[in-house]
């Protein structure tokens, strides 16, 4: 029972529509889990369970149990702000704030009460180094984050997430809006981050799932069809739907 994330028969409804059907998955610490499946299969919705981003949508109803660090995160007394500090998220499109590069990374620290400049400087540098962006931006920290390229912006967003030292990082198709070189950099990064963080990544790109993840879960129409070690699932899928999907027969 050393799962860092675990869901027990979780279902999610948007009003009447059931987007997730009885999903149970356990995630081990310091692993990368890829969620794959065709558009609209519920994989992004599932990812958003762990930092309660689905709460932002009207008329969402969730049943079942989601635990993060053995805490049931859908209990009434859960502090969502604290949960989101612990469970960071990188979004599909790079979405830096219209602030300087420095302030983008410092933002998460500032809103969590850290305002001492020396601490901020130190954390910003470490975080930017972790995403291999420091050397590219160290001379223009005061410049707007919008001046960076798309790939750089996405790495900045990752640095922003790392700065508040989460235990878990959720990634919602983090490379889908990027060129191949930037994508390769992000993947390299995911590989390195695994030693310190637990990562759950939604991806459309099956090769990417194969390259970066230890475990893979295949979703189809709101159901979890198959889950397992990535190598096993790709080489030896047990379910016909999984086989069809990973061999490109639909999706």
């Amino acid at each position, binding site marked *: 029972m050393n799962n860092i994330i675990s869901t027990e028969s979780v279902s999610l409804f948007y009003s009447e529509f059931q987007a997730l059907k009885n999903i149970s998955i356990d995630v081990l610490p310091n692993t990368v889990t890829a969620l794959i499946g065709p558009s609209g299969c519920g994989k992004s919705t599932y990812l958003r369970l762990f930092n309660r981003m689905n709460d932002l949508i009207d008329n969402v109803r969730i049943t079942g149990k989601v635990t993060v660090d053995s805490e049931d995160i859908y209990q009434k007394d859960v502090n969502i702000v604290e949960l989101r500090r612990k469970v960071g998220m990188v979004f599909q499109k790079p*979405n830096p704030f219209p602030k300087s590069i420095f302030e983008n990374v410092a933002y998460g620290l500032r809103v969590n009460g850290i305002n001492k400049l020396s601490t901020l400087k130190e954390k910003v540098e470490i975080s930017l180094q972790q995403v291999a962006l420091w050397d590219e931006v160290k001379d223009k920290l005061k410049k707007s984050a*919008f001046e960076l390229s798309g790939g750089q912006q996405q790495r900045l967003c990752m640095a922003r997430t790392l700065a508040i030292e989460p235990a878990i990082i959720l990634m919602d198709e983090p490379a889908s809006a990027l060129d191949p070189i930037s994508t390769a950099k992000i993947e390299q990064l995911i590989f390195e981050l695994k030693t310190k963080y637990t990562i759950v990544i939604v991806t459309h790109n099956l090769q990417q799932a194969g390259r970066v993840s230890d475990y893979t879960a295949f979703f189809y129409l709101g159901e979890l069809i198959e889950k397992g070690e990535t190598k096993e699932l790709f080489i030896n899928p047990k379910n016909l739907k999984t086989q069809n999907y990973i061999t490109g027969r639909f999706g």
Partner: protein
Amino acid sequence: MIISKKVIRIKNIKQNIAFNLFRVFSAIVVLSLIAILSFIVYNGFGAINWNFITSMPDDGMTKGGIYPAIIGTLCLVAGSMIFAIPVGVLSGIYINEYTKDSYYKRFIKLMTNNLAGIPSIVFGLFGMSLFVNTLGFGDSIIAGSLTLGLMVLPVVIRTTEEALKAIDNSFRHASLALGATKLQTIRKVILPMAFPNIITGVILSVGRVSGETAPILFTVAAYFLPKLPSGIFDQVMALPYHLYVISTSGTNIEESRPIAYGTALVLIGLVLIVNLLANTLRKYFGKKIKMN
């Protein structure tokens, strides 16, 4: 060929007619604006000098300046904005950021829109009955400012709402995902981004506040005052009302005619200056958001 040359020719003719119509109508708009402005400048420019804008009216308002009316209008603009900006911006934030799509939200929006449709003279009467009489402020800057503030509240609310709506949700999500509270998200990310557009609403409001006569008629405006106000419970003269007075019920209307045009020109100039200031502010903050 399936498509006949005739059809193509007719299409082109229609297009030409339509575009020329558009041209004519926009020319009408621009020309009437130029006509009004040049008329005022032509008639009023002669009346304007340093003395005119810095001295008291004299000789039954046929001579002297309009200093107290300028000060009065500035007081009313400031007073109404002190009321309308916080109330309007906070309401806009509440409507767009805090209420879900519900009957309650639609009710607030309906009320705001209705408020925008009320004629300004009704605001004047309402202000008189509430602020002047019931609350006992008397004819005063505070009564006039509150009345004017109420009148432009819908404009401020609506522009704030639109400004907030224009900001992509991904910025809100990014901030919340970093453990920021909703309030922190609004204060540190959303409001700074919306600020330039909110200023637009404020500019529109300032224009209306400085030009309206009806709401101040029963709540603050004085026919003639030989001294400046000393506090918010004093009456003041105001440019639009002064203009009305010297053109309709002055002691000698013909003789005060140049002063009337001068007053109109000062009023237009004042609104223009406030707009320019607000625009500069908007550009400055627009830039600061990107650079910050």
